[in-house]
């Protein structure tokens, strides 16, 4: 990782490149969005409702 390594500052402080990335995240500029309502609905369907349905079908079969 020569290019990132090249931006390392003093041992006590964060490397300049890491500092730049963290600052971007803290400002919200570089933050990805958490699961939104639609994603959570998909998770509910795929991770809870469908498994429960499959379990019921399998048990009654």
């Amino acid at each position: 990782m020569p290019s990132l390594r090249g931006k390392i500052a003093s041992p006590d402080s964060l490397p300049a490149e890491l500092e730049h990335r963290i600052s971007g995240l803290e400002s919200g500029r570089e933050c990805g969005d958490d699961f939104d309502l639609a994603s959570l609905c998909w998770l509910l369907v795929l991770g809870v409702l469908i498994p429960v349905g499959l379990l019921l079908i399998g048990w009654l079969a």
Partner: protein
Amino acid sequence: MSAPRDESNADKSAWPLLLSERTWGPFRLGVALATAAAATWCYLIGEYTGYYLNFLQGSLALTAGSMIGMLLVLLAAGPTCIRFGIDSVASTKPQFGSSGWVIPALMQFVSIIGWNSLLLIFFAKSLTQLLIVVGWLTPGAGSRFIVPLTTLFACVFVYWVLLRGASGVTRISGVLVLHVFVGLWMLWLLVSHQWPALVAARPALARPDALWNYTTGVEIGISSLLSWWAYIGAMIRMAPNGRTAAVPVMLGMGAPVPLLSMIGIAGVLVLKSSDPSEWLRTVGGPVYAVIALSFVAAANLGTAIAGIYASAVGLRNFRRIEKLPWHVVLLLTLAPVALVGVLIPELFFAGFGAFLAFIGVAFAPLCGIQIADYYVVRRRRIDIRAIFDSSSSRAYVFWGGFNPAAIVALAVGCGVYIYLLNPLTYESHGPFRLLTASLPTAFAAGSVHAALTLWFVVPSGRGGYTRQIKKIR
């Protein structure tokens, strides 16, 4: 150095990825995850399920368990990894502390290296069999040397692919994902040729208690998918947001395992062998055997590439390794795999499975702790600076870098799991037959973590919780 060069190297570090570097869309992520998920272990998972359940019940229980397990993993590591572009190991620092994260890091390293050693030895054995089937190698002759040599070759190939970082993973997965469809074809072949026998087949180790058998099938699915915790962060951090990742993770990583495991269930029920490279020769002759062996080899190689990548990124969290060149980190990650494959492949096969079973036990409490911490105690607030800055004033230093609440919760969770279900003997206690082992374990560990945090850690003012708790009140 120029900015584009930095961006191209960011995926080879454990540092947070910028939004511009998180370029994987839903399809690319789903393909990479499917390639990582589908490997020889699917047959083993199916085989264990087929010992207790018939084909229909086994398939449904395993699919349901897998989707539940995938959901737990995604809710545990997913939000922090996706929001900040970090890997699974870094996402544990808010719970385990600025030094305590080495516990999940070791779990990840041992689990991935252990499993990938097994997979690459499987790969070597499949290739050896392939050479025998096509007549390029005499049975018995030289196979003692072929397996170590092939393992070494596989390690060199993985190293070469991963020199490109995440783009190496995505490029190779675009080709190797085809093996998922070959697997489905094999399943169709077995089901269509053997349907009457499959319907009539009875599981060999089924117990009189039908509910116990059914719950065991679900538990096998959940616990198998919980192991994906080790892999998932390094992959989903390449996606820009939760919406992009949710469905590809659930379908790309959660669905192929139960689908391909059906090959193992059907194989062990009808032909008493879960390994398609053994029974496809019987069903379709040498041509089918070559296809099956190629499938097994490709599947394991794809998984190994994703696993070694995830492990190398995880190792980057160690300060000394953070500064090493990427190719050296890859060598450090691959060296144990190569040494095992070359020096002690058979011994490893015989003895390491038991150890890996116990390592798998720890992922359920880990997920419970992360879910309780992120959603209940912290209310989704993460201090990204404290994840990477371990100076004494930072929030995640706790006590000397360790958070006793998470460590105690992890130990309690492991104890609960082993009490409910011994992963080696399948001896069970208490509410296992109604609740599985992984779900109560995750709940217990999460509850212990939340309770200890609220009673002891928050009043001490450590862990960066104070602000969140005040806002809740």
